[in-house]
């Protein structure tokens, strides 16, 4: 029996937060006064019918940009100040990497720019067919899709199979192969060659065999680039090198390809690391087989430079966009003077303060509630750029993810410690008393270890948290280190016994409550190193509820179940939320940009056109 269409969404790794403000001037955007937060569903002006959560009037969002009617032709110039991490579709796992992969590769399923939970068949020709016992997924491959030169031939199911298999190749070492495809039969032993979990009975069919009933996850994961086809006979020799060099010689199935020479070499031709990348039309792409319009003829990506300079060049120039995060002053400038050129994409992730649930003062739920009540979430967001790019976070599932409304929507559960976005010391004091401190302030002897990240605005947020803790009577030791060090050496290592990690954040890989809540809050996922359940949250009833919700099938049921888990997490105040991120993007005035809701609002090259 074929199940109803499941929600398949892909979401890459979080971008590295909002870009630093460079050495430029004021960083605080005081857009609060001028912002009229549009509610869901209504808007005015010529911005489009649908409006996204928390996007002000006059500003674009992925839900307002038209997906058709663009002018064909022209070259788009992209200014990024960050470089890609990897352009190999089997390795790419970063928001910025996805902008190239999305234009050049066709995974089995893809999202249109304005959806996050409603993918359409891309390389597949129809919805996945899941067997009754949930252990077999059958997908039919679309016909008439060809690889770009020099491979040229038609894509078959074997190519899709190889695309996924190479993820297990140590020379490729795809980061999510084991997380999402680990339930395929033989996946633990896979190392780049065929394994029983994937079979291709004929050129047009690929079948996935699971050892456990986790079809949902596998089906979700088919929107990730790993399922894009890779020609084995061409790629084999590159995948044999340590590490694999296929990325520097890759071929494309999408409307665009990285410029390459006659032998297919991309490195030095279409991609100069740290300098530039060039996308040209894929001559073997057949528009009839693809939902993408592909208006542009060429995309020139320029890497490097100062974010504030780049921002101005884009806003004041022509035929340009910036595809990584603009600097805060640029966002403010765009909002005030170039409003029509600004696009904001909600649902770009969340930030919260992780507190140690296992030991120390925060093992006590009332102390956690006290901190929640005391923290000035508006101030935390102001440091990040204000209401334009952030919403006050009131629970743990974030906007656009199914279950958001059921879990409380923008306002969140109506408990008193959640009711004051600017913080309320009286409510905080009340919970401190409940926790056993009659004065309303901490009177114990331990000094809290706080580890935050250097750089703006992380340091400012860490300082606000630090100050709030002082107001509650705590003694603290605040240590700011480089972000990767913060994760690797301190917050991600339970044995370091850090009490407060104020600069952690999360963004889901799919639009599904599990992808948002499971890893960070499930006690089963606590690891001795590389731990991402930073608060070491381990509530038995929550763990059980999550285990049960994992196996549910059907969007509605899952949304409901995970929303309930969210409410329970709020009730236990497992962490202190503050920021639902909205990602800004900017374009020149003569660009009709279309941004991807499912990828942090980055501009989608296959839908963007020049006016």
């Amino acid at each position: 029996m074929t199940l109803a269409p499941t929600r398949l969404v892909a979401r890459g790794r979080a971008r590295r937060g909002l870009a630093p403000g460079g050495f430029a001037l004021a960083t605080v955007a005081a857009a609060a006064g001028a912002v009229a937060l549009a509610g869901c569903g209504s808007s005015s002006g010529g911005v489009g019918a649908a409006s996204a959560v928390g996007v002000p009037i006059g500003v674009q969002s992925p839900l307002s940009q038209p997906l058709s009617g663009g002018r064909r032709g022209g070259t788009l110039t992209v200014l990024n100040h960050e470089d890609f991490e990897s352009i190999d579709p089997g390795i790419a796992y970063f928001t910025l990497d996805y902008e190239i992969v999305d234009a050049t590769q066709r995974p089995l399923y893809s999202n249109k720019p304005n959806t996050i939970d409603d993918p359409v068949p891309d390389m597949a020709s129809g919805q996945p067919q899941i067997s009754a016992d949930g252990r077999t997924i059958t997908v039919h491959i679309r016909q008439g899709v060809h690889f770009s030169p020099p491979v040229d031939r038609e894509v078959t199911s074997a190519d899709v199979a190889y695309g996924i298999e190479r993820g297990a190749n140590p020379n490729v070492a795809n980061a999510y192969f084991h997380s999402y495809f680990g339930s395929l039969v033989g996946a633990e032993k896979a190392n780049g060659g065929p394994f029983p979990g994937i079979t291709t009975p004929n050129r047009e069919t690929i079948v996935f065999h699971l050892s456990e009933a986790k079809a949902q996850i596998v089906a979700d994961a088919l929107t990730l680039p790993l399922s894009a086809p890779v020609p084995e006979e061409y790629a084999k020799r590159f995948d044999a090198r340590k590490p694999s060099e296929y990325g520097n010689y890759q071929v494309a199935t999408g409307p665009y390809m990285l410029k390459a020479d006659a032998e297919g070499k991309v490195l030095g031709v279409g991609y100069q690391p740290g300098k530039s990348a060039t996308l040209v039309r894929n001559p073997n792409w057949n528009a009839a087989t693809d939902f993408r319009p592909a208006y542009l003829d060429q995309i020139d990506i320029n890497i490097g430079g100062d974010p504030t300079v780049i921002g101005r060049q884009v806003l004041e120039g022509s035929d340009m966009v910036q595809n990584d995060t603009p600097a805060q002053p640029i966002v403010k400038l765009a909002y005030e003077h170039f409003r029509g050129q600004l696009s904001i994409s909600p649902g770009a992730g969340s930030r919260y303060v992780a507190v140690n649930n296992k030991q120390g003062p925060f093992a006590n739920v009332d102390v956690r509630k006290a901190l929640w009540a005391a923290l000035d979430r508006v101030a935390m967001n102001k440091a990040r750029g204000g209401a334009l790019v952030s919403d006050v976070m009131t629970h743990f599932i974030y906007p656009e993810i199914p279950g958001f409304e059921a879990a409380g929507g923008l306002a969140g559960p109506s408990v008193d410690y959640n009711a004051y976005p600017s913080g309320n010391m009286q409510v905080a004091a009340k919970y401190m008393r409940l926790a056993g401190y009659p004065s309303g302030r901490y009177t114990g002897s331990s000094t809290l270890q706080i580890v935050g990240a250097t750089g703006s605005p992380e340091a400012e947020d860490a300082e606000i948290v630090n100050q709030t803790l002082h107001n509650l009577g705590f003694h603290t030791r605040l240590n700011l280190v480089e972000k990767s060090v913060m994760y690797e050496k301190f917050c991600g290592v339970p044995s370091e016994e850090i009490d407060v990690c104020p600069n952690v954040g999360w963004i889901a890989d799919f639009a599904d409550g599990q992808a948002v809540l499971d890893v960070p809050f499930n006690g089963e996922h606590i690891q001795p190193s590389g731990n991402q359940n930073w608060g070491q949250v381990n509530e038995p009833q929550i763990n059980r509820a999550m285990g049960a919700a994992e196996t549910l099938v059907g969007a509605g049921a899952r949304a409901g179940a995970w929303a309930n888990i969210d409410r329970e997490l709020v009730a236990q105040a497992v962490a202190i939320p503050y920021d639902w991120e909205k990602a800004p993007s900017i374009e020149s005035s003569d660009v009709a940009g279309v941004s991807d809701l499912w990828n942090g609002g980055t501009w989608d090259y296959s839908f963007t056109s020049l006016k």
Partner: protein
Amino acid sequence: MTRYIVRRVLWGLLLLVLVGALTFVLFHVFPTANPARLRAGRNPSPRVVAEISRNLGLNRPLPTQFWLYMRGLFLHFNLGYSYYSEASVRSLIFDRLAATASLTIGAAVIWLGCGLSVGIISALRRRSRLDRASMGAALVLISAPEYWLGLIAIYLFAADIGQVKVLPGAGSYVPLTTDPWKWFTSLLLPWLVLAASFAAVYARLMRASLIETMGEDYIRTARAKGLPERRVVLRHGVRAAINPIITIFALDVGTLLGGAILIETVFDIPGVGRLAYEAITHADFPIVEGTVLLVALVVIVANILVDIAYAFVDPRVRYS
């Protein structure tokens, strides 16, 4: 003289080996980030991290890694491969060297010309208004952060976003071989900004050095011989005053050839400095090691050249 040179060169080589070893120790023994984990992306399972580690050669015992590294470095000039782009570090660096060299040499010409002449004039017209004005301006330029100066220059003069649109702005760099005129105009603003603070330092140095030199007895003798003042100043005065400038100049150019990170970032010039900066943020160790070694090499060579130049320029040095 030859022995002197040979000795200096041998010392230089030894120093280079030491720097290579020290770099290795810094990046492999005391790293603050694990490149394998960074490369592994989010929520990596330990198995993935181990696989990547193995690929990057990070799981071999340190002495083996050290030996392989040193051998590759000094026998084959192999600087390794980038963890991310899998391009050879050597090719990446050489690719960027032309841009950095263009930036450095052009700026050096400007700062030497301006700085020295302002310094000489100021020394000769001590305490005049010109002197006070130029030394004051020099102080401002020395104190101004380079990055800020670059941004100001762009916001004032860049052709795309400036107030007075005279010079090409950020991101307009092209290599010399592609379009010489465009190469030249795109570098004018970066040259001026980069040269600004150096020129100021050199002006002050030259002024101080020349004032001291002009007070020497041999200047009095030169005048007593009836020489024209210009000759006294330039041939007798400046010639003697320029010694400290030579040392500093070689070191400055040497360090800059390792990459002027700030200017390269602001003006979006694809040079060695930016390469190093990005590699650092990615913990792409081979590139970082490569650029560190490059800077060390250039500084060592510059030092050797200075020592040799001194022996030619100042005969009193030769017999040490």
